[in-house]
């Protein structure tokens, strides 16, 4: 199984029936493909609607119905459209149960950096700062390293998106939870070891006594 698929699939297992979820651009978007059967997850698109559906068939794109990345999507039965202030009221007001985002860096305190690399890449924060602060649960879906270098750090060096807001990190190597008592490795992928994870993780983490195997 592809790394990205593994991550997306694991994230999707975390949702509960009825959850309202915002998926970021890129790998987080894949999560929608793995929502477990029997569970209804309501996708919020921060450009202004809930109950986002899948990508339309070719030729059936509607330029008025696009996601936060400007790409054509569809809406499901029971959808509702609204304006941007309402959309971010939903986000900041705690009405989104979980947001899934990518990361450039994250640290053991739950600090997240995912919106700029000074002097190099300044795309802007878009809605990420509001999402990370407002969603009840912040889940990072990310590859464990960038070109072999750790992305899960003791302390982020890039400009932050938000402070101490990350709750969970899912990588191809495992699942971490960040708690006031420290960062825990809760699950480990079947094809790795704690030692291997330690080698590519700068952050200090505690291995859960009941460490589980991350299912594919």
């Amino acid at each position: 199984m592809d790394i990205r698929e593994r991550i997306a699939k694991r994230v999707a297992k975390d949702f509960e029936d009825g959850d309202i979820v915002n998926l970021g651009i890129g790998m987080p978007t894949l999560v929608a493909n793995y929502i477990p059967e029997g569970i209804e997850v309501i996708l919020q698109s921060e450009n202004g609607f809930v109950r986002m559906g899948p990508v339309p068939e070719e030729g059936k794109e509607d330029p008025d119905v696009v996601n936060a990345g400007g790409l054509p999507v569809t809406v499901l039965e029971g959808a509702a459209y609204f304006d941007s202030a309402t959309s971010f009221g939903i986000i900041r007001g705690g009405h989104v149960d979980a947001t899934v985002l990518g990361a450039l860096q994250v640290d053991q305190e739950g600090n997240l950096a995912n919106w700029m690399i000074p002097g190099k890449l300044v795309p802007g924060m878009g809605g990420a700062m509001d999402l990370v602060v407002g969603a009840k649960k912040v889940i990072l879906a990310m590859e464990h390293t960038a070109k072999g270098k750790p992305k899960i750090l003791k302390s982020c060096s890039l400009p932050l998106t938000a402070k101490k807001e990350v709750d969970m990190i899912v990588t191809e190597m495992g699942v971490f939870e960040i708690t006031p008592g420290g960062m825990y490795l809760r699950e480990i992928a079947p094809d790795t070891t704690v030692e291997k994870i330690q080698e590519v993780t700068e952050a200090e983490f505690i291995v859960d006594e009941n460490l589980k195997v991350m299912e594919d």
Partner: protein
Amino acid sequence: MSKVVSLEEALKFVKDGTTVMIPGFMGAGTPETLVDGLVEKNVKDLFLICTDTARPNVGIGKLIVNGQIKKLYASHIGTNPETGRMMNEGLIDVTLIPQGTLAERIRAGGAGLGGFLTPTGVGTVVEEGKQKMAFDGKEYLLEMPLRAEVALIRGTKVDKKGNVWYNAATRNFNTHMATAADIVIVEARELVEVGEIDPNNVMTPGIFVDYIVKGE
């Protein structure tokens, strides 16, 4: 007096140096006819307030590429490499604003509020130069209202009294910008008779709209 005017008449309010708000999410909801008119008119040194600069040949992106923007407030510029290049070369003065904060600042500008407190951006570069306040152990930034001289908006259906209805995800920043500028010009995708939009479903009341231009 009819609010329906020619493109030329409407755009006479946008001069070199005018502060302009233009809605749209990667082009969706952007008034393309008005933007094309601005490109044609080639007014310079605009102060533009928008959520993203789309792509080089889409919507707001055209104004960037054509070198008409001196100052920019936006939440995301990553999809238009020209914006980043011109920012790095000192040609455009860019201020990046979290998208929810941007929507709320514009709403505040239109609603006569002197500012508001948001948790978004606390602990990030966004807090620089801003007053911080804490209540019940939670920190907030004091954000100020935003207004413009001219707002160029885009309605799916517009009646001759200026009542506007937006389709799907095109609503985004339109409703807020319509309240927060001295002159509001709406591009009507479809110009309809008064009464064709149910008064209950009007999304921007005509009292906010000064001029209507039939879009192409």
